[in-house]
């Protein structure tokens, strides 16, 4: 077999960015739907927004921003050949992703406990604007949560590659692309926090 395997890192990043822009359009469509509905039912969105726990929303924001920092620092570490530090930082990102999901699950469980879940009998008694608010809340935070889970799967796979030296100082494009995906998940949450918790 040939000893030289060509790598096109720029092509890999371009491909990743093209995928990421499809994700931006996906969530962008939902943000547009939210904006229209909020303009149509401002009072009911405000009322429904009162049901959400701002403290948990802000804590989750800090958790995701910190996880974005650890993944980018993991790239810096591998660029410097600091494998152990890179792995530790990437493992921290996975830990923080887990913390985010646990907090989110507590939040959703509290809503379910109050009868607020898609197609529930209690939700059907609420005004249309509040029903739409919770419909968007569960759709957007649920879709975001699925992206967090997918991102954690990708980063766990890259952590394994790091351990096996398949990702290393002279070849770390997988870590860069996994990091790009994780940062986009963070950016989406940056918009979800004010939309649902602060400005509703």
């Amino acid at each position, binding site marked *: 077999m040939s000893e030289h395997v060509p790598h096109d890192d*720029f092509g890999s990043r371009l491909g990743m960015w093209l995928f990421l822009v499809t994700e*931006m359009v996906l969530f962008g469509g939902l943000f*547009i739907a939210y904006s*229209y509905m909020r303009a149509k039912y*401002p009072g009911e969105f405000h009322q429904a927004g009162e049901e959400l726990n701002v403290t948990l929303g*802000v804590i989750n924001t800090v958790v995701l921003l910190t996880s974005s*920092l650890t993944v980018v620092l993991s790239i810096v570490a591998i660029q410097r050949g600091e494998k152990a530090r890179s792995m530790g930082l990437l493992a921290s990102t996975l830990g923080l992703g887990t913390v985010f999901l646990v907090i989110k699950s507590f939040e959703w469980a509290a809503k379910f406990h109050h009868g607020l879940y898609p197609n529930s009998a209690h939700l059907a008694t609420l005004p249309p604007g509040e029903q739409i608010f919770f419909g968007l809340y569960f759709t957007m935070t649920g879709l975001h949560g699925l992206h967090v889970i997918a991102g954690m799967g990708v980063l766990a796979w890259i952590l394994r590659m790091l351990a096996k030296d398949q990702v290393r100082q002279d070849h770390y494009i997988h870590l860069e692309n996994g990091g790009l995906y994780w940062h986009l998940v*963070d950016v989406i949450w940056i918009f979800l926090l004010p939309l649902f918790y*602060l*400005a509703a």
Partner: protein
Amino acid sequence: MSDPATAIVHPGYGTFIKVWVALLALTGLLVTLSHFGQTTAVWGLLILTPLKAGLVFYFFMHLRYEGPLLKGVVLITLGTLLIFFALLFADVAFR
């Protein structure tokens, strides 16, 4: 080879830690503004949130170190979404 991200010196830990501190500060400001009423909260959302997202794109996602092609891909996408927003609200405003 033409690889814009590897053609330059890689940024160190400090740069990203400073950006993270700025992101936390902006989040704190956003939460504080939300206590001054809905109008202030919405203005906070419209100004501070894109700023936070911009910091993540520019520094954490390394767009700062990329060439015009990748920057163009992102800007065209965001521009298209903005046009959709503008068209929607132009329609809503005159109903």
